[in-house]
């Protein structure tokens, strides 16, 4: 009887190849991050990590919850496109705990947006500091939330 015979050296070769492939695939499972390939050729968890940081700016909607009247006042006036935190600064701590009061504002922040410069669009309201009531505070005459009204 002649049973089909594999040459022993071929068998060793086959076994060796299988062992290499086996080790490779086992190692690959343990070395590639679990979420690799979830969305593409990268670590899917990186998206979640990028998203996990807490925001610093709370967003105007958050202010509306408690300062609804100011919000309504603002949206009726020319500063309607200016977000609360553009003037008052990042205020998430204050939203979480109103006892942490936002910093007081100085005239400098009005000037930042309204100082005349050739590169500013002509339709934007601009002032010349030397001509526009130099020695007085902006808020003595203007209402911050309703700039088209004067005091």
């Amino acid at each position, binding site marked *: 009887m002649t*049973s*089909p*015979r*594999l040459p*022993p050296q071929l*068998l060793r070769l086959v*076994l060796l190849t*299988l062992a290499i492939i*086996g080790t490779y*695939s*086992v190692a690959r*499972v*343990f070395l590639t991050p*679990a*979420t690799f390939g979830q*969305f*593409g*050729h*990268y*670590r899917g968890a*990186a*998206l*979640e*990590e*990028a*998203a*996990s*940081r*807490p*925001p*610093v*700016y709370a*967003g*105007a909607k958050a202010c509306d919850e408690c300062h609804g009247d100011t919000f309504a006042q603002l949206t009726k006036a020319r*500063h309607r*496109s*200016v*977000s609360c*935190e*553009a003037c008052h600064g*990042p205020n998430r701590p204050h939203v979480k705990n109103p006892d942490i009061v936002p910093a007081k504002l100085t005239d400098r922040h009005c000037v*930042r*947006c309204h*100082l*005349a*410069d*050739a*590169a*500013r*669009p002509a339709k*934007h309201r601009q002032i010349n500091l030397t001509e526009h009531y130099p020695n007085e505070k902006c808020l003595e005459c203007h209402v911050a939330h309703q700039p088209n009204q004067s005091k």
Partner: protein
Amino acid sequence: MNSSCSRRRWLGWLGSGLGWLAALPAAKAAKSTVKNLLTSSGAPKGYDPTKHQWLMCIDVDRCIGCGLCVDACKIENKVSASPHYFRTWIERYLIRKPKPGQLALRGEVTVDSPNGGRDGFPPTLVPKSEILKAFYVPKLCNLCEHSPCSQACPVGATFDTPDGAVLVDPEYCIGCGFCIQACPYGCRFMNPDTHTAEKCTLCYHRITRGLKPACVEVCPTQTRIFGDLKNMTEKDPVQEFIRNNKVFTLKPNLGTEPRVLYANIDKEVR
């Protein structure tokens, strides 16, 4: 002698090999559950990146150069304060009148960006009579459809997310700096502390929570409009922007197909 390589033995080996292969998915699942148990991230739940496609529109005619966006970006993302590192910044373009006798439509072009515009711009010293025109241009990652930076990355640390952001995986980044060279818009830099590449993430931690990116939040003139292609509302600001303006992208000849759209830019802007 014959027995050592009998068919039975041979099949046995094959069977155990297949058994190992079948165990792989189980091992994978076990590993990911262990990992999930060990790390609980503060990421918002229920955000599906495949259901969004973010984009940004910038109306150059509206920018007043107040620099609040630059300031907000640095604060929000804790970007290094020194004046070389910006995820977004503002440039002031100044185009002079051609000199008398000079046969040209426009004169010299100067661009400045003191501290990226973070503290606002001091009024220009060039007298008004010499200026043909001047304007501000906010710059940020152009969110390329075909991003050269992610193609240049040798380790796959930079990638395009399904929702349109281009992110860097700091765990994979080896800090080689190829992406910084590859970005035609100069939007990347090396984080001086971690020595990994850093860039605008479109405030990924904000947009996944339904907030606007910090720069858009504080922009006082709606120069920056942020939108979602996959969730267009009726009268969407993005659609209005495209309806009302001539829309361009930066360096269109490079074929990067940016998803940051600019309205009303001059050919001097690059």
